[in-house]
Every structure is written in structure tokens, then in C-alpha cells.
């Protein structure tokens, strides 16, 4: 749902001179399929072995009991990520300004809670209206 919601604001984001990118630990064969299926007009980047997510300090390891549960659902993350550890990024949405500084950060350990894309748009409008950027 996050990706569809971002797609919904992408033309307005572009009109503001900004861009969206999505980072996922999944290998390219999965990002390619997903990109096509959702008709996305922004990139999905493969953050191989969660290297960048680690730098944003978002990575956690699934407890054994949850790993087994996901496996029973057919979610074989070792295959999706090309690693044996079952690690994931916390869902997070950041806005980074042209100087490379984080200007908005929405991070939540509960993956059923997300900030609205409208909120992100509003923050971007404020940012692009300021003379420093």
C-alpha cells in the first residue's frame, strides 16, 4: 500500500522538483516484477544485504518464532534477500534536502502505521519554498 500511495503523489512530487526512491532488501528479480505490476514511475532500488538501511539504523532481525510463521506463509526472506538471516528494515519515509540533511523522518516499528503521503507532500512544499534549498 505504501508504494501505491507514493505513486499517487509522484507527479506532484516531480512538479516540486523532487524525486521518490524506494529502498528494499529484495533482489532485482522481485523489484522488477513489483515495479511492473504496480506501474510505478519511480525507482525501486535493491539495498543489497540492507547496507543502506543499516546506515539509517533501521534494521532488525526477526525473532525465530516469527521467522517460522513467515516461512509457513511462504515468505522465504532468505531467498528474496540472498542471505540466511531474516532481517528487515523498519518501515520509514525520509525527506532529504539538496545538501544531504534529513528534513523529515517517519519511522515506526509497527508496520501497520504509516504517515500520509499528503503529509510528505506538505513537508516537501515547505522545503522547496524556503530560499535555502
Amino acid at each position, binding site marked *: *500500500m*505504501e508504494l501505491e*500511495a*507514493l505513486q499517487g503523489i509522484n507527479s506532484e512530487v516531480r512538479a*516540486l522538483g*523532487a*524525486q*521518490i*526512491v*524506494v*529502498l*528494499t*532488501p*529484495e533482489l*532485482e528479480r*522481485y*523489484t522488477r*516484477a*513489483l515495479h511492473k505490476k504496480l506501474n510505478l514511475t519511480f*525507482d525501486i*532500488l*535493491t539495498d*543489497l544485504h540492507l*547496507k*543502506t*538501511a543499516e546506515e539509517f*539504523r*533501521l534494521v*532488525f532481525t526477526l*525473532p525465530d*518464532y*516469527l521467522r517460522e*510463521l513467515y516461512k509457513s506463509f511462504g515468505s522465504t*526472506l532468505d531467498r*528474496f534477500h540472498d542471505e540466511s538471516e531474516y532481517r*528487515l*528494515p*523498519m*518501515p*520509514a*519515509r*525520509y*525527506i*532529504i534536502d539538496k545538501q*544531504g*540533511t*534529513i*528534513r523529515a*523522518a517517519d*519511522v515506526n*516499528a*509497527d*508496520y*501497520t*502505521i504509516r504517515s500520509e503521503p*499528503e503529509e*510528505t507532500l506538505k513537508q*516537501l512544499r515547505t*522545503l522547496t519554498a524556503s530560499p535555502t*534549498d
Partner: protein
Amino acid sequence: MASLQERLDEFKKSFESGAPPYNAPHEVIETMHRATAELKGTGIEQRALKVGDRAPSFTLFNEEHVQVASADLLRQGPLVVSFFRGHW
């Protein structure tokens, strides 16, 4: 269109009702709640990078196997970066 959070809430309600199409057993739902509570309890949210921090740069492959560098994107304008767990 309903807001993103409204749609997420609707999905959660449907999943946690245990009814079709998901038919989620009660134990599964309990397990997921436990995992989320434990994760929150580790303080991981407070440790994540936040407003004012310098964003790490990255160069990664997109879905077309083209390398994309955050530095190149930032030269053109601000960047929205979303971390996504996956297609499953």
C-alpha cells in the same frame, strides 16, 4: 479515496477478524502483536536517523539494473526515500 492509514486500518481489521480471505488463526495474530511490541521495546525507533542528521549516501541498482546514486539525485532536488520490506 480513503487515506493510506484508513486503508491499512481496514486491512488490519479484516486480517485480525480471522475471517476469509485471510482466515488468520488467533495465535498468529497474537504472535504478530508480540513481535511488534518487542521490537518497539528495544528502542529501535529512537536510534534510527532523525531530522537534522546527515543522510548516508548510497549507490544501488534499480529494477532495470541501472546504478542510481543518491548524490546525483540530490543535485536535481530533494529526495523522498522510503524503506520497504518487500513484495510479500
